[in-house]
Each structure stands twice: as structure tokens, then as C-alpha cells.
């Protein structure tokens, strides 16, 4: 269905094609009214009586030893109620994930990037807090810094951590370095693969660090009491994670902390970790008052996020019939100041959209003096796809094959081995490729002067832990409580699945995001897992309730429960001797049949369905300025099953546009002295409405057999193809292939000029 038709059909009529009554319809979301009326409460919107404002002082240097911190002047300033530094926090262990988290929240002896938190103040007003933070005197001893992968990997590079020895290298290195880990995946014999190839293409690519760019800066309010308990209101992708991570940084027992999820103003992976909550908690403890911290946009850019830049070298062999015989890849990813696993993920993704008998993939995770990487929608996959799908495009050109046909020719199917080990379960890559091939866009002639590019993308998707509680109210309505923050319409998805199960109108269901004390443990919303895994918990709780409802009907009718069926929201007596009992009739009588009805399910969701997307774009390139304009864009993505198609399309479109920004414009720009030169939306320019056409969508549905409704999860993969799609379209339009992102006007112009001379 095109978006035009999709947008037109916003009703709540049954989805005839699938046989579902509610799943696949487009009701208005339950939390929508508050959001269009300006009433929805995000963390920065909360004010408590007696609340103080916190302000964090950040390092102006990319790498320095903290010699001393003098807070005395700050403490004497008007309105100041508390000051904290790294010394107020528990000592960090010498290495490991806990140290990295603790030292990201606040620096100890060393600052590792410009923007690293050093100290914080709580005061009566924002301005008093800021003025006092600026009055804290920090003496630094500057250390040499490294800002890019090549410099950080060099033998004589300044080393960030003297206890970091490369993992994955035998024998284990005896000298510390900035290479945190080496990852290898291999199969077959690449040299044999190259020998079998008619053509071999070898290229080197680079991408720059970008930010998730959520419009809501990180914010929290923390209220600690005299018994050592803390209540945290936070905008995050997972409030249970806020609880555990805050406890970890403070050395507290988690039971001291309750986290209440505020609405979240975008995350895209960037709000799967914490920065400010432990700082606010210590300030609140010291001051005995609630403390609010809201990051400035500049702090968001300097100290949170980014997704890593990468350098990727590809060597790919193919036969003249379009069969890709082998691929050899070398990938290095920035990690930021502490070790991550960006390169490992990149290695797993880089050739996943292709069947290969021979492959050798080697990756390096590299630390440098930049803020710590955080997940950003299908982390690491976009850069990897940029490299592979640019080369694949060249192969198609060289062998004279349609780029979609070539991809179909090399497409993996169920049972084929993945590059990283296990066999593919049921996947929908081929269906996505066919959807684009058959789309109106691909079938339409390319307008004169434009270029067309296609590419595909892969992302794993994950399951993890989720909980749901479903309570039936006495009037026959239901409340669905889950632990997954609603980032982009997941409340509506939960309600739709509950409606389908119980046979209740979706508007009789109230979906609620519960705090850490009212609902069972639920992992962060990441890996496109909320509708998949939390949805599974909702379905399980509803199925439990249906059993209970049947028993209540049997009790009312004094018959065997086996004689009762649940049909369309009513208990039906199989032998037909009784009038059906509606859900409302049973709940209304619940007092007399055994009390209130409710059910809870907690699970580890297994069998997340891998996601693929295939996309096509037409672009024009201004020969005088180098500006790339996206003229038309279509994306196909395998959703498994679209529970609420409008929000599936929304995820697809949002991912595409973030990818377009990454491809064309966005990049972290550092000065030689290690400071971010574009920490604001003016100079870090994300796409705006006038940069774009409509984003046409084809939802492909190859159901995931592991989910009761076939859900795969749709949040991430859409951001993967746009990087190569843009590069391939620009190459088609200009005849010039650019292998360094972003394809910003100066870079494109430079490449065009170089090609001319």
C-alpha cells in the first residue's frame, strides 16, 4: 500500500486481509490527545516544591589529568545548596563496564573528552547553578589527545587507558594500546573465492560520527529523602535501566530507587544509558531537596551519543553472471573514550544481505578522545552497509546487471548460514527486494538529469526481558500495564494486541507505562524489541485472562470449563444451552465468582526476527554547488506483521530520513585542540521538511514464527540502506563515486571538479 492510501485509511475498521479484527488497524493512539494538547509530561516539564536546579561543569580539554578541584568559591555563591565532584562518588573499579559507566557519569582523575563531566552544583535557580558551576576551579595537566581512528591506532599514539590490552589477538599484547578489541569472522577460503571471480573490486570507505539528534535533551528530576530513598523522574528508553545504572554508579541497592517514566522526546538508542541521574541523586541527597537537571543542547552534543565514525576496506569478488564469490572486509570503528563493541557489530552486519561461500571479516574497536559511543538505530550497520552496498553497486554496473536482480541473485534464504554463525530463520529480504523492484517508483523512468540508487540493509532485532500486567475492570474495560516506555506509539500496539486477544474494542483498553514498582522488570526499549517482546508478554497475560474468564463463565453456568469457548469477547457455551456472557457481564459479576480478574506475564522473549529493508532514491546534483537533492524515495521493510501500520510507516520514514542526514550532511567536526566545533542544530544540520520529498513506504509482511502475531520489530533497520542508497544515486547522477561521507556540497563539488580535470 502506498503512503497516500495508507494515510487516507485511518479508520478502525477490521483488517479483512489478515483475518484479524484489531491487529493491522490504525486507531488514534491512546496518549495522542495529551501530546497534541501540550499536556504530556516529559521529564523537563516536572517541577516539585522546593526543587533546585543542577548544573554540570564539563571539561574544556579532550585529555587531561585533574590535578585539583577547588569548590570553595562556588559553595559561597548565592543560592548554592550542594556541590559534588568525582570524589563524592564511590571509587570506580580499575576496569570493566562498571568503571566505564561510572567514569562517564563523572570523571575521576582524568578527563577523556571535551565535555566530560567534572563537577556539579545545585542551586535555587538555573542561573545561580550555572554561575556557581563556572566558579569551580579545576586545575588540569594537559595530556596529548587523539581524535581519529588512524591516529589512535598508530604505534606512537597517546594511550587513553594504560590497562587496555587488545582482546582477540594471540598472543595477548603486553603493551597497552587504543585498540580495545579485534573481532574476526571467517568461512571458506577467500583466496579461492578471488580466484573464482571474474572481477575483483577493492575500495576504502569512511563515515563520520553523528548524533542521534533527539529533540528532547536529557532531563531528570530526583528527590532523595532522609531514609536514603530516591524517586527519579526520567525521560529514558528504559526506566529499569535507569534504576540499575544509577544504583551501580552510586553503589546503592536498587531497592532504594524508584524510577517513574516521564514521556520521552526521542531516543533512537541514545537514551539507553544514563548521564545525569546519579549526579542529581547525590546533589539531592546533599541538599535534602529535589534536584532537576536538564542538559543544554550543547551538552547533549558534547557529552552524549554519538554513533561512531568508521573506516572500512572492502575487497569483493564476483563472476560475470553476478554471483558474488567472496568478500574480505577490514573495519575499524570509533568507540569514544571507553571500550564498546561497535566494530564487532559492524563485522556481523557487513555482508549479511548476501550469500557468500568465502568470507574474511576483521574488525577493530578503537578508543579515542571523544564522547562515549551510544547505540543509534541499528548500531554500526549503516557504515558497514555503505561500504558493502557501494561495492555491490559497482559490481552490478561492471557485469551489466540490474542492481536489484543482482541482489536477488545473491540473496540468502531460510537455512543458509549467517556470516556470524547461526542459520537464517525465516527472513523477508527477497520479498523486500521484489517489493522495490515492483514498486511504482522503480518501474517509473528516471527523470532526465537525475540519478537512481538502491541498497539493502540488515539488522538483528532482539528479544530480552519484558513484563506486562493486564487488569480487567468491573465495567468490562481493561488496563494494560507494561514496563516499556512509549517512544513512538507502542502503547497503541500493546492495546491492539490486547484487543485482538480479548475481543475487546481497542478504545476500551487503557495502555499504561508503569513505574519500577508497579510492573515487572523490563529491559530497555532497544533492538526494535518493544512490540515484539513486551507485546508477547501482553499476549501471554491476555491468554491467561481468557482462561480465567472461561472458568468464571463455567462457574456461573455450573458447567465444565471445557464446554466454554472464548469467542469475540464473550464466553460461549459450546452445547448452546446458555446465552453468551460478555466480558463486561463476567467482570461485573466477578465479586460473586471469585474476585477481580488480572494476570501478569514476565518473560525472556526468544526468536526475534531479523529485519531487512531495501530502498530506492532518485537524486539530482547541482553541478555548481555540489548540493544533492532527494527527488523521490521509496522504502520497503519487512515488519513481520504490522500491528499499527501508521506507526510502522512512521518508523520506516523516520529511519530513512535519519539515514539521509547521515549520508548527506551530518558529521561531528572537531578542531585540532579536541573541541567539537558544531555542538548545535545550526551547524550540525539535521534534515528539515524542505529538504525532503514524501517517503513512500511498502510494508512487507513475512511473519516471524516466534511471535504470536508474527511481529519482527521495525524500529531500526530503516536507517541502514540510506547511506549506500545516496552514494549510489549520486554516482549514477554524476558518474563519480564518492567513498567518504557525508556527501556534503563541498565534498561533492570537490569530487566533481577532480573528476573533470
Amino acid at each position, binding site marked *: 500500500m502506498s*503512503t497516500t492510501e495508507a*494515510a487516507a485509511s*485511518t479508520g478502525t475498521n477490521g483488517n479483512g486481509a489478515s483475518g484479524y479484527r484489531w491487529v493491522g488497524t*490504525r486507531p*488514534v*493512539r491512546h496518549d*495522542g*490527545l495529551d*501530546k*497534541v*494538547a*501540550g*499536556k*504530556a*509530561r*516529559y521529564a*523537563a*516539564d516536572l*517541577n516539585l516544591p522546593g526543587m533546585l536546579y543542577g548544573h554540570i561543569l564539563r571539561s574544556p580539554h579532550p585529555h587531561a589529568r585533574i590535578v585539583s578541584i577547588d569548590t570553595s568559591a562556588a559553595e559561597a555563591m548565592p543560592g548554592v545548596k550542594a556541590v559534588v565532584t568525582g570524589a563524592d562518588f564511590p571509587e570506580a573499579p580499575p576496569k570493566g563496564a562498571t568503571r566505564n559507566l561510572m567514569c562517564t557519569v563523572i570523571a575521576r582523575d582524568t578527563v577523556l573528552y571535551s565535555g566530560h563531566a567534572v563537577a556539579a552544583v545545585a542551586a535555587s535557580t*538555573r*542561573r545561580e547553578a550555572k554561575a556557581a558551576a563556572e566558579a569551580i576551579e579545576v586545575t588540569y595537566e594537559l595530556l596529548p589527545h587523539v581524535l581519529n581512528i588512524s591516529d589512535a591506532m598508530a604505534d606512537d599514539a597517546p594511550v587513553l587507558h594504560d590497562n587496555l590490552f587488545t582482546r582477540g589477538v594471540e598472543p595477548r599484547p603486553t603493551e597497552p594500546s587504543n585498540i580495545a578489541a579485534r573481532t574476526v569472522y571467517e568461512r571458506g577460503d577467500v583466496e579461492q573465492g578471488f580466484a573464482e571471480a571474474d572481477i575483483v573490486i577493492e575500495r576504502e570507505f569512511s563515515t563520520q560520527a553523528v548524533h*542521534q*539528534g*533527539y*529533540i*528532547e*535533551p536529557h532531563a531528570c528530576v530526583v528527590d532523595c529523602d532522609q531514609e536514603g530513598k530516591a524517586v527519579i523522574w526520567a525521560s529514558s528508553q528504559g526506566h529499569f535501566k535507569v534504576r540499575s545504572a544509577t544504583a551501580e554508579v552510586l553503589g546503592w541497592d536498587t531497592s532504594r530507587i524508584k524510577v517513574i517514566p516521564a*514521556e520521552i*522526546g*526521542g*531516543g*533512537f538508542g541514545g537514551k539507553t544509558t544514563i548521564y545525569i541521574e546519579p549526579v542529581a541523586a547525590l546533589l539531592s541527597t546533599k541538599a535534602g531537596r529535589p534536584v532537576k537537571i*536538564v542538559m*543544554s*543542547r550543547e551538552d547533549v552534543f558534547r557529552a552524549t551519543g554519538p554513533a561512531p565514525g568508521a573506516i572500512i576496506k572492502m575487497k569483493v569478488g564476483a563472476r560475470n553472471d553476478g554471483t558474488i564469490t567472496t568478500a574480505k572486509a577490514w573495519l575499524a570503528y570509533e568507540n569514544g573514550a571507553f571500550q564498546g563493541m561497535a566494530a564487532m557489530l559492524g563485522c556481523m552486519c557487513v555482508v549479511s544481505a548476501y550469500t557468500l561461500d568465502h568470507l574474511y571479516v576483521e574488525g577493530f574497536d578503537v578508543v579515542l578522545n571523544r564522547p562515549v559511543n551510544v547505540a543509534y538505530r541499528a548500531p554500526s550497520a549503516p557504515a558497514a552497509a555503505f561500504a558493502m552496498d557501494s561495492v555491490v553497486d559497482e559490481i552490478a554496473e561492471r557485469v551489466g546487471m540490474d542492481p536489484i536482480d543482482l541482489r536477488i541473485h545473491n540473496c540468502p534464504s531460510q537455512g543458509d548460514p549467517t556470516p556470524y554463525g547461526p542459520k537464517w530463520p525465516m527472513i523477508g529480504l527477497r520479498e523486500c527486494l521484489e517489493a522495490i523492484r515492483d514498486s511504482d517508483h522503480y518501474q517509473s523512468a528516471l527523470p532526465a538529469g537525475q540519478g537512481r540508487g538502491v541498497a539493502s540493509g540488515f539488522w538483528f532485532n532482539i528479544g530480552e526481558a519484558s513484563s506486562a500486567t493486564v487488569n480487567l475492570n468491573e465495567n468490562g474495560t481493561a488496563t494494560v500495564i507494561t514496563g516499556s516506555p512509549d*517512544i*513512538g*506509539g507502542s502503547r497503541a500496539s500493546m492495546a491492539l494486541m490486547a484487543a485482538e486477544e480479548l475481543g475487546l474494542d481497542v478504545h476500551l483498553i487503557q495502555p499504561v507505562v508503569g513505574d519500577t514498582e508497579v510492573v515487572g522488570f523490563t529491559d530497555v526499549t532497544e533492538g526494535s524489541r518493544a512490540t515484539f517482546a513486551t507485546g508477547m508478554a501482553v499476549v501471554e497475560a491476555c491468554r491467561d485472562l481468557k482462561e480465567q474468564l472461561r472458568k468464571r463463565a463455567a462457574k456461573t453456568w455450573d458447567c465444565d470449563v471445557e464446554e466454554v469457548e472464548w469467542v469475540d469477547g464473550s464466553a460461549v457455551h459450546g452445547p448452546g444451552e446458555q446465552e453468551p456472557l460478555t466480558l463486561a457481564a463476567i467482570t461485573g459479576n466477578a465479586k460473586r465468582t471469585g474476585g477481580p480478574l488480572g494476570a501478569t506475564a514476565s518473560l525472556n522473549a526468544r526468536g526475534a526476527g531479523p529485519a531487512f529493508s531495501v530502498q530506492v532514491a532518485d537524486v539530482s546534483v547541482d553541478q555548481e554547488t555540489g548540493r544533492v537533492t532527494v527527488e523521490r524515495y521509496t522504502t520497503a521493510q519487512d515488519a513481520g506483521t504490522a500491528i499499527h501500520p*501508521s*506507526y510502522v*510507516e*512512521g518508523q520506516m*520514514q*523516520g*529511519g*530513512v*530520513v*535519519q539515514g539521509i542526514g547521515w549520508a548527506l550532511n551530518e558529521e561531528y567536526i572537531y578542531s585540532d585542540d579536541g573541541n567539537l566545533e558544531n555542538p*548545535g*542544530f*545550526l551547524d550540525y544540520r*539535521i*534534515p*528539515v*521538511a*524542505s*529538504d*525532503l520529498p*514524501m*517517503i513512500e513506504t511498502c510494508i512487507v509482511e513475512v511473519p516471524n514464527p516466534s511471535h504470536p502475531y508474527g511481529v519482527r520489530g521495525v524500529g531500526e533497520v530503516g536507517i541502514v540502506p540510506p547511506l549506500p542508497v545516496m552514494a549510489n544515486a549520486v554516482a549514477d547522477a554524476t558518474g563519480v563515486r564518492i567513498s567518504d561521507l557525508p556527501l556534503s556540497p563541498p565534498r561533492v563539488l570537490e569530487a566533481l571538479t577532480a573528476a573533470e580535470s
Partner: protein
Amino acid sequence: MSRTHVNCEVNGDAVDFLTEDGESLLNALRDELGLIGAKEGCGTGDCGACSVIMDGRLQCACLIFAPEADGAAITTCEGLASADELHPLQQCFLEGAALQCGICTPGFLIAAKALLDENPDPTETEVRYALAGNLCRCTGYDKIVRSVLEAAVQIRTPA
């Protein structure tokens, strides 16, 4: 610290508040008047999350000093709906799924209202340029633009 007494009209009501010199209208609306619809996404005039209509003009409330609002008439997102009915833009945003996280939504609604007040029958391109000062990182703008165009139709041809 001396505070300035500001009188103005917000969403049709006469209001007054005290503010420090140098404080933004955005903070005054949010902290003094409790109108949290306008959001701070950047504080530098680059994202439009704080959009308000002041004396008929679309403005970034983060760039206006609160004392400048003295004597002005201001519309925020909270002033769009009547007691029993949403504004067509709000209704179309809901039905067209034009919001995901919703943090940008109040700003877009205000910017769209400012556009439709001036130009009741905009083209898609005009909508895109009129909304170019508002950033949305979730939607890719597709459903926002469609919803504004749909609302324009509804406003021009009331049922």
C-alpha cells in the same frame, strides 16, 4: 535580584508574572505560568520546539526576553483547542499519526497554524518551507506535511 512585572494575554486570558531580566519568554511560560506545551529543544532558535504566536507572528519563545512580552497577545499549543473540540490541526495530527515521541508536536502545531492563518490553501512545497524552522527527528516529516495539508482542507470546507 530585581524582578520585572509583565502583563500580557496568553491564549485569550489576561495574565501577569514576575520575571528576571534576561529570562526567556519560554522559561516564563513554562515556569511562571505552568504552560509546558512549548518545549526547549535547543534554546538557540534552531529547532522550533518552543514556537508560539506573538501578536500574530510565529516566534521562538526561547529567543524572546520575557519582559518583551509585556502588552503582547500570545498563543501557545494549549490555546488551540476549545473546551469541547480539538483544533482541526490537532485532530488531523492524531488521525494522520503525525507524532511519534511528540516533543516537537506543539511547535509544529503552532507553526502550522501560523501558516494556515496566512495561507489557507498552501501547496506541499509551501508547507515544507513554512515548517522548515521546526525540527522533527522521529517522523521524517511525511505524515506531518500530509496532516497539515489535510487540516487545511478541513478548515477551508467545514463539515
